[in-house]
Structure formats: structure tokens, C-alpha cells
């Protein structure tokens, strides 16, 4: 089943000429035609002719022996990455017709490695959300269903919910995501796939529509840990156009998977044992600890004392940056414009019509915390707490190599749940936000199903720029868990 392969398997198949990139692309286009109307994982599917032309070019490179590391591999691109000549919406009415004349660095790197783009995947509007409910193009539905309940539509997580649903359902071998406070890891956990948020600065932010600049980081969403390493190799690298991008060399990440983890020290942060944490999540965490012990890791209790301030601090800093980053959507130069008799009128009409409720909430929060008289109490204080959170991680990493936590406090919930209480919705990010605040790499690995038959993920957090150890530990968890479950909606099922 071509739509069920990992990147690594597909790459080997293409190299061995077992199937062509055209066949691989066609299988995915067919799957998209069949399943996307129900899942709404893609906002834009590229024209078949264009996809097949890219695939043919990849086939030619295989024939010539010049194939890149992602050559001929069909993937989805979160619709937050600007793609030259291809509509890029950020799932917002504001950019519903925006066609960038430029290619983001990350997608350009992937194209340079030979990847075949299938389309642009759905997300929460401007990547703000944890359920993919705030997309102006309608919610994405999780391909997983609760056991015995085929009717309740579940959320795929967010904000990279279109990417996670597409990868889980076989509508792409892998997809790009972006993570600001958990937007790669939480949807990966909800959809039973792997998601890696690299170290801040590992992937260039140039050409990726900004939500919160000091937190945004692109990363891979894949079916295996090795795939995450492989795809990150293609995405990452120094970019002179992004002043915050790192000039460190990009290691052969995929080789880190399968390396022995014996003797590595795994920290279990006490503060993540939050009161009210569901039993299934807790049990899965204990299971993960047991697997790593069995693999020869030394498990150590650690403390990250400022964890409990992570979420509140995040919801000051991220909205503050977003309120400024989204000021450019003013109706003057690109995107939606609603005319009005005055300049202020144009701003008000355009932004009221162009932004959805969640985006407006965050712009308002951000504007408030940066306002004169509140800046010191909110933004400045939050920055100080952020420094303490970062220090927590640095201190923990003096004694341990990685941290192991649950990715999210629950499995996927139903569409419409948590919608009336934004704070409840924000709590989804409680385990993912601290690593974002610290800028450290973090990986979500699917490790099992709960009683309702829904996937749960564990999170591995590592030192700055030590994605390799994170991937090694992730690989060990993956091997021990042997997670091979497939969601109810899948290109390989019932075809």
C-alpha cells in the first residue's frame, strides 16, 4: 500500500525502482480525492498535472542517480509556509486569495531535496489554536474515531491539525508543521503520528507566516521517528535571511535512531504529574518509563519548579508578539480589503472581516499586555519568568540527557468540546508550552491507544541543538511500543 509507507520505506522503494514517484504521487492524489472531502485536511490541493510533473522530475533524478534525500516523496505543507505561486492562506479569510511570489526557506529546502508537494494542509487560523476549529476553511476531522462511536467527529489537535490528519490517514507520507506552543506535538499525539519541534533556530522562519516570532519553529510530522530525523535534515540549516537561525551544522539526524540508549539519563519532571491528569495518560507515561528502563536508561526524578507558570506566561508572550506580527494585515498592500471612507475605517472593516474570533482574542490580549501601564506587570514579568523556565531546563539537563513527559493531558476530544472555555482549550498545551518557552527540542511519539481506542503520545525533550539524543530515545520508545495502529479513516482501508 503506497499510502501506508514511511518516508524511509518509500525512499528505498523508489531507489530500488519498485515503484515510481509518479505512482506514489498518484496514489496519494487518489487518496486525497477520496478522503479529503470528509477530513478537510487540505485547504488547497495542487493541480494533478503539477504534482505529477514534480514526481516525473524526481523519477528522472532517480534514473540519473542524482536523487536527493527526500526525492519523489509526496508530502503535505502546512498552509502557513509561503509557497511560490501557490495560494497560502494561514487558514484565514484575510489571506484567502493570497498567492506569494516567493518560497519559504523550509519549503525551498524540501523542494531542493526533491520532495513532491501534494497541497497545503489545514490549520487553526494563523496557527492559533489546539483543535483546528478556528480555520476559516472549516475544521479538520481526526481520522481516528472512538471505539464503537463512528459518528462523533474528533479534533485532530492543532494548530497543525491538517498535517497530522493527512499523515495519519494516508493523504501524505509526511507533512510540515509549525510549533509555537505545541502545534506540532499535540496534533501528532492526537493523530497517532510522530511530531518533532526542533530547537528554536534550527529551521529558518523566513517565508513562514509569523504567529509569535520568538517561539515559532518549523518541524516534521511523520510516521516514524527515523522519518522525522530524515525530514528535519532536509528542512533545517542556516539561513542568512533569518537573523535568529542557527549556523550550526545539520547532523545526519536519521542516523541517531536505532543508536543504543543504554546509560542515557532520563528525567521525569515531578511538576508534570499534574493533579487531575487522566489515568490513561498517567499509565502510558509509566509504561514509557518502564520501556526506557528496560532499554538500559537510567530514570531520574527531576524538578522544573517554574513549570506551573509556563502556560500563563506563554499566553502573555505569544499574544503580545502576535498582536504586532499581525498588524501588517491592514488591507493596504495584499490580502483582504474592506473599503471605508477613512483609513481607520479601512483598518477596522478589514480586520473585523478578515480575522476570526480566536485571532481577534489574541490580538486584543497581546495589545493589552503591551499597553502603557501594563507592560511591566505583564510582558516584562513574563519575560523574566521565561528566563526562569529556561533555567529550569538548563539545570535539569546538567543531570539528565532528556526529559520524558506526556505530550498532552488527554487524547483527542470531540469537535465542539472545550469551545466555550478558552482557558480549558489552552490547557491542552500545558505539557508542550514549557519546551517552546525554553527553545529546546521536543518530540512526540505515539506509544499506544487508550481505552477509547485513541492514540496517546509521549514527549521527549532534549538539550538545545541535541535533537540527536531526543531522536535516539524516541526511537527506543517507538521500538518498544510497536505502535502500528491505523485510524478508522485511512487510505489503505476499504479501498
Amino acid at each position, binding site marked *: 500500500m503506497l499510502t501506508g509507507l514511511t518516508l524511509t520505506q518509500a525512499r528505498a522503494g523508489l531507489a530500488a525502482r519498485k515503484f515510481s514517484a509518479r505512482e506514489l504521487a498518484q496514489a496519494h492524489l487518489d487518496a486525497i480525492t477520496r478522503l479529503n472531502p470528509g477530513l478537510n485536511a487540505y485547504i488547497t490541493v495542487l493541480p494533478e498535472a503539477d504534482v505529477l510533473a514534480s514526481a516525473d522530475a524526481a523519477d528522472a533524478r532517480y534514473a540519473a542517480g542524482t536523487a536527493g534525500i527526500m526525492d519523489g516523496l509526496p508530502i503535505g505543507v502546512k498552509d502557513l509556509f509561503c509557497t511560490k505561486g501557490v495560494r497560502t492562506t494561514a487558514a484565514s479569510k484575510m*489571506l484567502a486569495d493570497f498567492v506569494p511570489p516567493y518560497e519559504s526557506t523550509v519549503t525551498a529546502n524540501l523542494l531542493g531535496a526533491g520532495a513532491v508537494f501534494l497541497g497545503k494542509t489545514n490549520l487553526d487560523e494563523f496557527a492559533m489554536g489546539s483543535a483546528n476549529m478556528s480555520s476559516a476553511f472549516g475544521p479538520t476531522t481526526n481520522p481516528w474515531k472512538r471505539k464503537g462511536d463512528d459518528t462523533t467527529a474528533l479534533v485532530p489537535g492543532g494548530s497543525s491539525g491538517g498535517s497530522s490528519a493527512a499523515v495519519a490517514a494516508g493523504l501524505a507520507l509526511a507533512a510540515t508543521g509549525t510549533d509555537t506552543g505545541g502545534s506540532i506535538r499535540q496534533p501528532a499525539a492526537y493523530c497517532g503520528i510522530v511530531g518533532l519541534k526542533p530547537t528554536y533556530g534550527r529551521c529558518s*522562519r523566513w517565508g513562514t*507566516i509569523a504567529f509569535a516570532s520568538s517561539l515559532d519553529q518549523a518541524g516534521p510530522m511523520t510516521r516514524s521517528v527515523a522519518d522525522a530525523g530524515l525530514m528535519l535534515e532536509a528542512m533545517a540549516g542556516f539561513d542568512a535571511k533569518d537573523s*535568529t537561525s542557527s549556523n550550526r551544522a545539520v547532523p545526519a539526524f536519521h542516523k541517531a535512531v536505532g543508536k543504543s540508549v543504554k546509560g542515557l539519563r532520563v528525567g521525569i519532571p515531578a511538576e508534570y504529574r499534574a493533579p487531575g491528569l487522566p489515568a490513561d495518560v498517567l499509565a502510558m507515561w509509566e509504561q514509557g518509563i518502564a520501556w526506557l528502563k528496560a532499554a538500559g536508561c537510567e530514570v531520574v526524578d527531576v524538578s522544573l519548579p517554574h513549570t506551573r507558570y509556563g502556560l500563563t506566561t506563554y499566553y502573555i508572550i505569544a499574544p503580545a508578539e502576535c498582536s504586532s506580527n499581525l498588524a*501588517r494585515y491592514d488591507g493596504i*498592500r495584499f490580502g483582504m480589503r474592506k473599503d471605508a471612507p477613512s483609513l481607520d475605517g479601512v483598518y477596522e472593516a478589514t480586520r473585523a472581516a478578515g480575522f476570526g474570533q480566536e485571532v481577534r482574542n489574541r490580538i486584543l490580549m497581546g495589545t493589552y499586555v503591551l499597553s502603557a501601564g501594563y507592560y511591566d506587570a505583564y510582558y516584562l514579568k513574563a519575560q523574566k519568568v521565561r528566563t526562569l523556565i529556561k533555567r529550569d531546563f538548563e539545570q535539569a539537563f546538567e543531570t539528565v540527557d532528556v526529559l520524558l513527559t506526556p505530550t498532552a493531558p488527554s487524547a483527542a476530544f470531540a469537535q465542539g468540546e472545550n469551545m466555550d472555555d478558552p482557558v480549558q482549550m489552552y490547557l491542552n498545551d500545558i505539557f508542550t508550552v514549557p519546551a517552546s518557552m525554553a527553545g529546546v527540542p521536543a518530540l512526540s511519539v505515539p506509544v499506544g491507544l487508550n481505552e477509547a481506542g485513541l492514540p496517546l503520545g509521549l514527549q521527549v525533550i532534549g538539550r538545545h541543538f541535541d535533537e540527536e539524543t531526543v531522536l535516539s530515545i524516541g526511537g527506543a520508545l517507538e521500538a518498544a511500543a510497536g505502535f502500528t495502529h491505523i485510524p478508522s479513516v485511512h487510505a489503505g482501508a476499504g479501498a
Partner: protein
Amino acid sequence: MSYTIEGRTGTWEIVVGLEVHAQIISHSKLFSGAATTFGSDPNTQVSLVDAAFPGMLPVLNHECVAQAIRTGLGLKAQINLHSRFDRKNYFYADLPQGYQISQFEHPIVGKGAISIELQNGDVREIGITRLHIEQDAGKLLHDQDPTKSFVDLNRSGVALMEIVSEPDIREPEEAGAYLRKLRQILRYLGTCDGNMEEGSMRADVNVSVRKAGEDFRTRCEIKNVNSIRFVMQAIEVEAARQVEIWENGGEVDQETRLFDPGRGETRTMRSKEDAHDYRYFPDPDLLPLVLEQAWVDELAANLPELPDDKRARFQAEYGIAFYDAGVLVAEQAVADYYEAVARGRDGKLAATWVMGELFAALNRTSNTIETSPVSAAALGKMLDLIADKTINAKLPRKSLKTWWKRAKAPRPLWKRRACAR
């Protein structure tokens, strides 16, 4: 203190501070690679960064940083090895990002000073509070269409230095002298062309009035005054307006005002209630600006000679008067010309010729020192001929007009005449 306003209730003095926006001379903009040539067709020098397209990021142009450091050194100011870029948030059609990248809390240059000279010969020191780097906005064109405004983003993102003075200025004349001196220093350094007509140097003027010995009273800011003469006029009329208000028992409101040179008055642009809350915060797209002392030292070592130093040296080296030296160093090109003439010769004689016959001839023929038909070398040779008495000093002076017209090198002409004589 010579400038005061006599009111009904007593004598008022004025307190003025200036904020000068000086466009940095550089090939490309502060955070993008777009060009900066003045007078290009609208929207032809705009990158995706300048137009703030989604996902675009600023990258600092280090030449602009070097220019700011040079300027700071020229102002004898503290160079801050750690500075930071902040976002100043507000909405306007000429501001594509919805924020200006500026330096709010931690500017690249701290306290310095400029010494100014008044017409009566007094020399005063005006403190510099700070200098920071920021982006310029674009320009709105209101005269292209009866109902629409057009936006030209050529200037959007161009690098500016904002140079803030202490409120040390007490007379309109001092403000004029300060601006002229600042412009002279910038031109010597080659960091700003100081062209106020083209807007590459603009001044915001902070004015308040007070009675002797009082603390500062409320000030008003007069925005974007575009000539030195207008700055001096604006201070006079604004100070008079404020005195009038105070003397009538009123209260001066802190506000932003505009100077209307046609009517000779200032009027409200923005009252305090409408003042923007700029919501400054550190720009997360840029790293803190950390300078190495060695680089600053290198820039300092390669700094051109500044006007005050040159003036002192001309006095010492060529034995000319303080006033004459001031005239000769006013413009770098004149100073260079003079020095080429004076070097190895009688400096006083050189000064007499340059400031006398040459300036007169340049004026008469609407030439500048750059377009002078007589080169410094030629004038120098002539002085040599006078010195060795090959020619009579009076002869070339008389024939300068002819010489000028023909624009020929002097030697063959005089040789002929000398021989004839």
C-alpha cells in the same frame, strides 16, 4: 542669555531640545537589500521585506551600524556595546509592518556633545542625549487622485539616525547654530548628506517656556520642520504662543504641533488624548546588537578629521585667524581646497586668496568649490609665482576675470605676460 520674551508678568526664557532624523548614507536599507536612491519612481525600490509581506524578516545592514557608530564618535559620545531593537507599534498607511523597528530603551549611542558658535563669537556646548537607529516610513501622495491617497514605499525601511539633544538650547539662533554644526559634522563623517529639502535631515523641535530659575514647564513638540530657518521661526512663534497662554492664566497642553511657514504659526496635530500608545517591546526577529570594542576602535581610528579639530589645526599649522579657519572648514570641500593651496606655502596668503578673490569669483559665476574652473593646484602655483616674484601680486588679481573665463592654467598665461614685461 540674550533671547527672552518680555511678558506682562515678567521675563520668559525658552527651553528647546531638538530631535533630528538624519538619513544614513548607505547603499541599501536598514533591514533589506533594497536600494536607497532619492527621486526614483514610486515603489521601484521596495523589497518584500519593506512591503512587510507575510513571513518576511529583517536582517540588519552592518554598514548602517558602522555609520551610526562613526556619527556617535563624531559627537564625542558614548558608544554602547550592547543595544537592542524594539518595535514601535502603530497603524498608518505608510508603515507596512504596522510597527517601526527602532531603538527605544537601549540606543547604540549615549551621551555626547556638540560645541556651537554664535554670531557674537560665544561658544556653547549643547548636550546630546542619545542617538539611535531606526527605519523610515514610506510616503503618502495625496495629490494624485481626488478621492484616494497613494502610497510610495521607496523610503520605507531606509535607515535613519535619530539624534536627540538635551534641552540645552535657549535661543532660536542656538537652534540654528546647532543644526548647522550637526549637519557639518554629519557631512564631514559622510554619514548623512544633511539635505533638508530632500528630507534626508528633518527636525522635531521641543519647545517650552519658563521664568528664570523655574523648573521645566510643559513642552510641545513641533514635528518635521524641514529647514533651519523654519526651525528658528517655529521656536519664536511657538514660544510666543505659550507665553500668551500662561500669561492669560491658561495651561499649555502637551501636544504634537505642526509649523505652517506660510501663516507663521504652529497648530495642533495631535493632542495628548490622541497620543499613541506605541506598545514598545524588543523585536523578536532581531538579536540584541552586540559590538566588539575592537571594531569601534577601528572605526574611530579611521574617522576623518572633524571640523573643530581641523579648525584648530588650520590655526596652528597655517597661522590663520580663528574666524578665518571657521569659514574655511565650514565645508569639507572648501577645507580640502584651501589646504591643497596652503600646504607648503604662506597659509595666510592662501586664506586671503581663497576667501577673497576665489569666493568672490565663485559667487559671481554661480560656481561652487567643486565646480571651480581654477583648481587648487593652479591657484597654488600662482601663489608660488607671486612668492618668487615671477609675477606681481596685482597682475593676476586684475586678470583673474580673463583667466576665469578662459579657464586656462595660469602658468603659460603669466609666463607670456611676465616675459612680455
